[in-house]
C-alpha cells in the first residue's frame, strides 16, 4: 500500500529564468548552428565557382590560341580525341580522359558489382550472425586502407601477376614461341588498375547493398518464408526487388567512387591520355591527369594550371549527377519503409 503523498514543504522558486534571455540565447545558438550547416553549401558554391572561373580562362586562352569561336572550342572539347593541353599544338579534346575513366570504371564495376552483390546477399541472408559480425569490420578495414597503398598494390603485385597469367595462357594455347613473340601486357594498364579500384569499392557496394537488404522489413521476409520459400528464393524473389532502389543506389555510389578514384590509377594505369577502350592498354583517367600535372608544382595562371580545372569540372559534374541520383534512389528505399 502506498502511503499518503507528502505535502510540499519547500515552495519551489517560481522565479523562472527570464524568458527574454532564454529566447535570445536560443536564437543565437540556432543562428550559429545554421551557419555551420550552411558551410557545406558554401563549400559547393566555392568549388563550382573555382572550377568555372578557371575553366573560362582555359577556354579563352584556347580560343585565342586556336583562333576559334567559343562554340568551336566547346565542340573540340567535347568531341576531340586529342588531349594535350601541355604540348604544342595544344589539343583540348576531353574524350581520351573520359575513355580512360570509363574503361577503368567498367573494369572496376565488373569486379565489384557481382562480387559485392553476392557477398552482400550472403552476409545479409545466409551468414551466421557470428560470421557477419566478424566480416563486416574486416570489410570496413578494407574500405579504410589509404588508396595510395592500393596503388602500390596494383603496380607491384596485381599487374605482374596479370602479366604472368596472360603470358601463361598464351603459352598454354600456343606453345613453343620465343618469350618476346607473345603479347605482353604493358606495365601500366587499365586492367590491373581497374581491378584494384574494383576491390577498393567492393566493400562500399557490399555494405550499402547489405544495408538495403537489411532495411527490408522483417514481415516481408517472414511472409516469404511462411510460403515455404528457401533463403535463396526469398533473397532473389522478394528481398532484392524490395530493396531494388537501395541496391541501385549502392551501385551508383560505388561507381561514383570508382570515377573519382585517383591514386590507384595515377600509380598504376599510366599517364598518357589516349582515346581507347581497351583495358589492356595504359591510359590516363581524368583524375590521374590532374594528379600528374600537379605533381610538379603548378605555376599559377599557366594553361596547364587551368587545364586541370577544365578536366576537374567534367569530373565534378559526372560525380554530381551520380551522387544526386544515388541520393534519390537511397532516399526512396528509406521512405518506403
Amino acid at each position: 500500500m502506498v502511503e499518503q503523498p507528502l505535502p510540499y514543504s519547500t515552495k519551489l522558486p517560481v522565479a523562472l529564468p527570464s524568458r527574454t534571455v532564454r529566447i535570445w540565447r536560443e536564437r543565437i545558438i540556432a543562428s550559429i548552428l545554421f551557419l555551420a550547416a550552411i558551410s557545406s553549401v558554401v563549400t559547393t558554391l566555392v568549388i563550382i565557382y573555382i572550377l568555372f572561373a578557371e575553366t573560362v580562362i582555359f577556354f579563352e586562352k584556347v580560343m585565342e590560341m586556336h583562333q576559334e569561336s567559343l562554340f568551336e572550342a566547346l565542340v573540340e572539347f567535347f568531341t576531340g580525341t586529342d588531349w594535350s593541353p601541355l604540348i604544342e599544338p595544344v589539343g583540348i579534346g576531353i574524350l581520351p580522359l573520359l575513355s580512360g575513366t570509363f574503361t577503368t570504371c567498367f573494369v572496376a564495376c565488373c569486379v565489384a558489382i557481382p562480387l559485392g552483390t553476392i557477398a552482400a546477399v550472403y552476409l545479409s541472408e545466409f551468414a551466421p550472425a557470428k560470421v557477419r559480425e566478424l566480416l563486416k569490420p574486416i570489410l570496413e578495414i578494407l574500405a579504410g586502407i589509404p588508396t595510395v597503398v592500393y596503388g602500390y598494390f596494383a603496380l607491384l603485385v596485381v599487374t605482374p601477376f596479370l602479366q604472368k597469367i596472360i603470358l601463361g595462357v598464351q603459352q598454354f594455347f600456343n606453345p613453343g614461341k620465343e618469350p618476346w613473340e607473345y603479347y605482353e601486357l604493358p606495365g601500366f594498364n587499365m586492367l590491373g588498375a581497374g581491378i584494384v579500384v574494383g576491390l577498393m569499392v567492393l566493400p562500399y557496394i557490399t555494405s550499402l547493398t547489405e544495408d538495403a537488404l537489411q532495411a527490408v522489413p522483417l514481415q516481408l521476409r517472414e511472409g516469404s518464408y511462411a510460403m515455404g520459400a528457401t533463403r535463396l528464393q526469398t533473397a532473389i524473389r522478394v528481398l532484392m526487388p524490395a530493396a531494388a532502389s537501395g541496391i541501385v543506389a549502392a551501385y551508383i555510389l560505388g561507381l561514383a567512387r570508382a570515377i573519382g578514384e585517383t591514386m590507384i590509377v595515377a600509380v598504376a594505369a599510366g599517364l598518357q591520355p589516349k582515346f581507347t577502350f581497351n583495358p589492356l592498354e595504359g591510359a590516363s583517367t581524368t583524375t590521374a591527369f590532374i594528379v600528374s600535372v600537379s605533381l610538379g608544382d603548378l605555376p599559377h595562371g599557366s594553361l596547364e594550371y587551368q587545364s586541370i580545372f577544365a578536366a576537374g569540372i567534367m569530373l565534378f559534374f559526372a560525380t554530381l549527377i551520380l551522387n544526386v541520383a544515388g541520393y534519390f534512389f537511397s532516399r526512396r528505399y528509406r521512405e518506403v519503409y
Partner: protein
Amino acid sequence: QGTPTIRIDGSSTVFPITEAVAEQFQKAQGGKIRVTVGVSGTGGGFKKFCRGETDISNASRPILAKEIADCKAAGINFIELPVAYDALTVVVNPQNTWARSLTVAELKNIWGPDSKINNWSQVRQGFPNIPLKLFGPGADSGTFDYFTEAINGKAKVSRKDFTASEDDNVLVQGVSRDRGALGYFGFAYYMENRNRLKAVAIDNGKGPVQPSEQNVLNGTYQPLSRPIFIYVNAKSAQRPEVRQFVTYYLNNAPAMVKKVKYVPLPASAYRTILANFNRNRVGTVFGGKEAIGLTINQLLKMQPQ
C-alpha cells in the same frame, strides 16, 4: 623570426644534384637553414622564379627570351650558374635486343610532330614487329625543349601521343615495365637505373656514340650533350643563407655531380663560376636562345651578351 628557408624549384634533371647538395648542406648546418626542393620542370620552375616565389631555379636549358622578359617585368635579376654537363640519354627496355643505336634521323622520324610510327618495324628495316611505346618529359621540361630543338629542329614541337611527365622517375618506371618502350631523360636517371634500362647509342652521322662521361668530355656525344644550370635570384643572393648555400653548392659540385652520375665541369671552371657569383654577374650568356651541341670548352668561353 623563424628559420631561414631557401626555396628551390625547377628541373628534374638538375634535381638529383640539388637534392644531394641540399641534404648535405642542411646536415652541415645542423638544421639552422631549411631548403625545399621541388620538381616542376625547367619551364615550371622559371614561371615561379620569375614571380619571385623561389630563390633558386634548377634548369636543364638556358633561360629563354620570354622568361627573361617575365623576370624583367617582375623586377627580378638572376645569376646564371652552370653546374654540370648532362648527356641527354635515349633509353629502351633491357629486353630490347635490336635497337642498339639510333640515328638522329630515325629519332626525328619517331618523335616528329606528324609521326605515325607506332611499331618498331616501322623505325628501321629488320626491327621486330613490336608496338612502340613512347615516354618523355612534359612540356614544362627543359629536357623536352632541348630534345625537340635538337632532334626535331624546333623547341616544343613533338608528336603528342606519348606518356609525358615532369617527374623522370615516372618515365623510368614506364620504360622499365614495357618491352617496346623508348624514352629520354637526363643521364643521372639512366645511371641510377642501369639494371632496368638500356641506353641507345646516338649516331649523328659519325657512327654510334654511347652516352658516357668520357664521350661528353671529348665532345663526341652530339647533339645530346648539354650544360645544366642553377639560376639564383640576385636579390635572394644578398641573403647570407643563400650565399652560403650557393658557395657550398659550387665548392662541393665536383664530388656531388659525380656522385649523382653527371659529368662535372673542370675544377677550375667551378672556381670561375663561384667568382662570377660573388661578383654578382647577372644575366645570361645565351641571349634567351637554346644552345645545341655546345661542348664544355665552348660553354666556358662564353661571355654575357
